[in-house]
């Protein structure tokens, strides 16, 4: 996950500190919705996954999906929370995407409270205040006016397929101090959600949505400034940019003698600015009260520990396991690749390939780059096939370029590397053919060979290039280099 740098922002903020807390809404990977048996699926025809319950029809009643509770508990355990008795409340407000005009959520007693998340690079612990269960809303589409925006729309269309999908809202303490940290937090949180099997973590499909509370204060100050909440940030990139912009905006306001007004703001991705959301004149008063249609959740100790035993390895341990395949990588590009691979849940692939005898560094690189770039087809790739490919590449049976091409086809088709290589005509060069090609190059460039032979290493590239050209890309650069050096000796 390579992101653009925000160093300019860090300079601008000298003398200031930003304080950020995040609220992350995560859709749980259940088969059905939180309170009814409608399918929990993305991209259905509008209003085809609805029933009396999730449509809030008069007389309908909610019944809690046990699996949703289990996934919520997994999240709590993975975030080191205290998992305890909880109840549901109603949060009352009118909005057309909410079928009952109240949201069933947890307010006083959340199922998960007081945990923490450790950032992978800095090892800083970000406190998690709570991770509670609630239901998602439907989706409104604005018609007419300014390109689908709410302002200026003539009317709106509502689809309730998403209404009632189980969410866990993860609320951090205001412990984050930079846009980078915020992104690292979300990225690590996403890895945890994916690794624990609670969510697919797809920000682009809205299964992970982030609201950021941002304030600024003078460096060294202990008091918090007035905060603004930026709603619905749906990529790591937007998150970083929005926070950086908002902090700058607040600093500028204060430095020019104005005050920050507490408000909810909207991030405009195209213009790169946050704008105040126009809201109704009255103050919100959600009138929370205990949901009388539901009874308390009292997970037994046995159930919680049984759930804990099913979670499997979390990202920190997964990274440790991968790191142990190398020597001394706690940072740097290899560590970045490890973070990426674990974040995308590709670590089993790498570990499996290495256990099967593949080269760790090569396996890691191919997973972090080529496989990561094609997550859609990842299911087509077996650990065995991936391992074989890495071994073929290491053995020089495939050049790096060929290996990447073969891997791409494997992801699309699910075929074995040998089959793909054969179909593409990527027969490995046999040693005799390679030696013949090298002879041919030496004979056409005798002067350069003399210089190379007497130790001018900078000519390695020239010779490798010539051999590759003659072989029409079939030769492996590393094998050619080795062959050239052994000739020289």
């Amino acid at each position, binding site marked *: 996950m390579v992101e653009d740098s925000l160093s300019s922002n860090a300079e601008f903020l000298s003398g200031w500190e930003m304080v950020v807390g995040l609220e992350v809404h995560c859709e749980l990977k*259940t*088969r*059905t919705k939180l309170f*009814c*048996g*409608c*399918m929990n699926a993305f991209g259905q*025809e*509008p*209003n*085809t*996954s*609805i*029933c*009396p319950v999730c*449509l809030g029809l008069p007389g309908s009643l909610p*019944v*809690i*999906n*046990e*699996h*949703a*509770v289990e996934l919520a508990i997994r999240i709590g355990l993975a975030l080191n929370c205290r998992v305890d008795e909880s*109840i549901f409340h109603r949060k009352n*407000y009118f*909005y*057309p*995407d*909410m079928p009952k005009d109240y949201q069933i959520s947890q307010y006083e007693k959340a199922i998960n409270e007081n945990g923490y998340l450790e950032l992978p690079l800095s090892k800083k612990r970000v406190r998690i205040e709570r991770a509670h269960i609630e239901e998602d809303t439907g989706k*409104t*589409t*604005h018609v007419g006016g300014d390109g689908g925006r*709410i302002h200026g*729309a*003539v*009317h*709106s*269309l*509502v*689809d*309730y397929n998403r209404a009632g999908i189980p969410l866990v809202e993860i609320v951090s303490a205001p412990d984050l101090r930079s846009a980078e940290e915020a992104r690292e937090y979300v990225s690590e949180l996403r890895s945890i959600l994916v690794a624990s099997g609670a969510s697919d973590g797809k920000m682009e499909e809205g299964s992970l949505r982030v609201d950021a509370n941002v304030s600024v204060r003078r460096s060294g100050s202990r008091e918090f400034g007035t905060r603004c909440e930026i*709603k619905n940030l749906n990529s790591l990139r937007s998150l970083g940019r929005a926070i950086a912009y908002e902090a700058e905006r607040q600093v500028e306001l204060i430095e020019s003698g104005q005050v920050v007004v507490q408000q*909810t703001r*909207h991030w405009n991705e195209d213009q790169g600015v946050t704008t105040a*959301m*126009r*809201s*109704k004149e*009255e103050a*919100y*008063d959600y*009138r929370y*009260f*205990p949901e*009388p249609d539901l*009874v*308390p*959740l*009292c*997970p037994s100790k046995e159930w919680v520990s049984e759930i804990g035993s099913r979670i499997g390895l979390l990202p920190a341990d997964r990274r440790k396991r991968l790191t142990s395949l190398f020597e001394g990588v706690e940072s740097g590009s290899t560590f970045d690749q490890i973070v990426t691979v674990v974040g995308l849940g590709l670590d089993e692939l790498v570990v499996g390939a290495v256990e099967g005898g593949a080269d760790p560094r090569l396996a890691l690189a191919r997973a972090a780059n080529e496989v990561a770039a094609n997550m859609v087809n990842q299911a087509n790739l077996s650990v065995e096939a991936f391992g074989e490919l890495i071994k073929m590449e290491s053995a020089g049976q495939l050049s790096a370029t060929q290996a990447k091409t073969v891997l791409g086809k494997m992801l699309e088709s699910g075929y074995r590397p040998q089959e793909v290589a054969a179909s593409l005509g990527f027969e490995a060069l046999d040693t005799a053919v390679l030696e013949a090609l090298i002879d041919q190059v030496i004979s056409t460039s005798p002067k350069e060979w003399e210089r190379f032979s007497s130790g001018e290493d900078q000519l390695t590239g020239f010779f490798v290039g010539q051999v590759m050209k003659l072989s029409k890309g079939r030769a492996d650069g590393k094998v050619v280099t080795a062959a050239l050096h052994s000739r020289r000796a």
Partner: protein
Amino acid sequence: MPESISRKEVKHVASLAKLALSDEEELMYTDQLAAILDHARDIMALDTAKFAPTAHPLELNNVFRSDVEKASLDRDEVLSQAPASQDGRFVVPRILGEAP
């Protein structure tokens, strides 16, 4: 005794509940709600500290359903009851302001 509810509060509560009141209604409801709340003063005098709040008359917990799909409703049947619909969706007038 101080008023238990003022006309201003009635106005506020009506706006939270999305109800419009005429001036006469505002006055009438202020009087009536005040009378009802005054009647409730008998419990204001009670020492209730030792009683936990009851949200629910049953001592039930952990009532779950299993994560199994059930048939959804027929969209046409549902939309036939809607005040307005278009392309399989419910139509609402323009919305001023995002969800709170």
